[in-house]
């Protein structure tokens, strides 16, 4: 039998890990002479109590959903795709090319185009590492992280030369056509009497992210391809026995993973910046790893974890704005959350398993 019920694995462990991380963060805040209670109130106030705070939280969460799903899909085939950052940058390039050079008649079509562009470019950036892993055995972790640097360098090159408009001093592409701007939550939900989400960058691509969650769930747990991906992930010899081609699984799951990572560019590049800028990923590629880890590689878990990290991002910005707590401290808090939910998973899991076993023995 399993050692503990599924709900404990899915809910209890992340919750306890989170509380532990929060406790340690409180100690750190105390140590620099600020009040943790006040800091927490400020984070909640800034990120969750106002609709504009939610607008930021969900904007960040959108990025994290895409990159988290990307890591999760690759992980089901037991591959650790830490190239989300680079794949997202290339996705940005795809979005920029679609928005700069195609005269779309309407933003919906522009969004469709940039979605295809982002996914295609992100997938393309994952193709070579996948091929090298499948055919030559080059480890995917090494190749994808190297591809992050190549993508950054390529973006640099393009933004100070080819894509930079004449006369501009800034390393960024030209502004997209204003008619391609994606409707923000403010555009969609605010009424004159009730100005919701004022100035917040959350936009329609949040719903694209929700659709991506549904897509990944269908893919992994309902489709034949997902069945093969998971089978390959659990046992490579088993997959061989069943006649499942390892090469195909590696390449296809990495293409899907890269495509998902690329999609976050729709949110940042078309939805927010409306041009291609250097730091378009905002580090979301790496946060995706933590999000997938905490979300147990399940779309629903990824969604919740992404919102949590969005809250930390937005709450952190508020802290830096209103207190003497430096923004870097937020990185510490995020690191603690990652440490406890990911790396120290067993520290919480093992005692908990023992408790559940003891409880069961008492019943039996």
């Amino acid at each position, binding site marked *: *039998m*399993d050692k503990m019920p599924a709900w404990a694995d899915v809910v209890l462990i992340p919750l306890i890990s989170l509380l532990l991380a929060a406790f340690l963060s409180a100690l750190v805040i105390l140590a620099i002479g600020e009040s943790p209670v006040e800091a927490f109130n400020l984070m909640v106030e800034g990120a969750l109590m106002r609709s504009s705070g939610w607008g930021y939280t969900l904007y960040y969460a959108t990025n994290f959903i895409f990159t988290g799903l990307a890591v999760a899909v690759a992980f089901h085939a037991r591959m650790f795709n830490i190239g989300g950052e680079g794949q997202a940058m290339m996705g940005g390039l795809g979005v920029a090319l679609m928005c700069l050079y195609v005269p779309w008649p309407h933003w919906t079509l522009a969004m469709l185009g940039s979605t295809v562009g982002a996914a295609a470019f992100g997938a393309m950036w994952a193709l070579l590492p996948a091929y090298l892993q499948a055919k030559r055995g080059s480890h995917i972790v090494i190749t994808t992280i190297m591809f992050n640097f190549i993508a950054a360098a390529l973006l640099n090159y393009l933004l100070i030369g080819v894509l930079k408009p004449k006369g501009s001093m800034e390393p960024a592409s030209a502004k997209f056509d204003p008619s391609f701007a994606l409707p923000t939550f403010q555009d969609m939900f605010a009424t004159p009497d009730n100005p919701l989400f004022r100035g917040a960058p959350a936009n329609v691509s949040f719903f694209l992210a929700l659709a991506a969650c549904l897509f990944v769930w*269908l893919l992994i747990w*309902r*489709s*034949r*391809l997902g*069945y*093969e991906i*998971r*089978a390959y992930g*659990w*046992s490579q*010899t*088993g997959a*061989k*026995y*069943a*006649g*499942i*081609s390892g090469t195909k699984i590696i390449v296809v799951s990495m293409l899907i993973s890269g495509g998902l990572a690329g999609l976050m560019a729709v949110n940042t590049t078309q939805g927010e910046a409306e041009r291609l800028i250097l730091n378009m990923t905002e580090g979301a590629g790496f946060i995706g790893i933590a999000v997938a880890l905490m979300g147990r590689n399940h779309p629903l878990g990824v969604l919740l974890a992404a919102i949590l990290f969005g809250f930390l991002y937005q709450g952190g910005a508020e802290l830096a704005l209103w207190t003497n707590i430096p923004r870097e401290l937020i990185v510490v808090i995020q690191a603690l959350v990652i440490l406890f939910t990911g790396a120290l998973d067993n520290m919480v899991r093992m005692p908990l398993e023992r408790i559940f076993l003891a409880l069961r023995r008492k019943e039996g």
Partner: protein
Amino acid sequence: MLQPSISKARKSLKQLAEEYELNVDPDALIENLSVGHQQRVEILKALYRQADILILDEPTGVLTPAEADHLFRILDNLRKEGKTIILITHKLREIMEYTDTVSVMRRGEMTATVKTSETSTEELAEMMVGRQVLLRVDKAPAQPKGTVLSVKDLRVVDRAGIERVKGVSFDIRAGEIYGIAGVAGNGQSELMEVLGGMRAGTGSITMNGDQIDLTGKHSDGQSRRARGIGHVPEDRHDEGLILDYTAWENTIFGYHRDEEWSAGPLMKNAAIIREALGKMERFDVRPPIPSLKAKNFSGGNQQKIVLAREIEKNPDLLLVGQPTRGVDIGAIEFIHQEIIRLRDEGKAILLVSVELDEIMSLSDRIAVMFDGKIMGERDPANTDERELGLLMAGIANEPDKPDWQAVEENLAAVEHGEAPKNG
């Protein structure tokens, strides 16, 4: 400085080896010894340290019958010396022939302790599973029909460049069980893997008269299944099942691309679960809960899940590797009956097992593999364990020295990549 004590140790080791007929040279390198020989070194080690209790866990698993006999003669001498020997084994015959007292373990508990002379294999089997077990396999004589599988000059070279299968040829007809005996690691696994589409080879294999691919993309497991080859692999944990998959996911593993279970790119999970429940009931898988993960079933029930999947697909040829390894004696009975039932339906069955008893009781023809070659084919009615045991070490003629010595010389020679000394 160490010289005196080393020579002293060598002397007492030699003395011990002679005293107990262990036949161990203290200066031989372990890597140059056969498995049976290595085992005797272990025993010598224990004796040198003046152990009074010797615990042996499945000591005959990798030995030929002659080596096993020799081992038990040594153990008999030790018993006469007043040593205590604890023998852990799943082979009831060993228990009955060599032990004085026997305890039965079931689900982590000692269920019974009796004098061996006052019990029988039937009674022991009953104590092991808690009900009466049929130990003999009842089967009618085979009625073989046309040739289903024909293998000619099959060769397999592994990744390290070592030839594992060295030109094997045989035919299997519909309605017969072709058993391949042999000590583990003599090329049987590689042979099965080529037939099952898990490994490339050279040579020629025809299935129902059609040549099948041995390399390339039409030589995978899917192509084999499409040709009517079912496969119960030797290793159910790593190959036959995905342990972290539920039972229902496992009941279509390998056949998951069939039209029957597909709705576009999606799978018909509800239909598969229904099918799984039916299979589990027909094959008496306990507990019959399709949503339970495969790793939560016992070995016997896991094997029944694999068998249900492969047998109910009604293949023309069923490859069966070690069908009862790690399976309780009650499930063994059931598994053997199912294999024979499939044979009686006119299907061809290739059985590979290291259990000589299993091969002898199930097979209609027996081939013995040694060092990548088939040493010979025997009719189970006209052969015995000794003859097959010698063949398992590559000895086809009457040896001119004690069996175990001839066997050991051959095994050691092969280990060194030389030709076997005794033919």
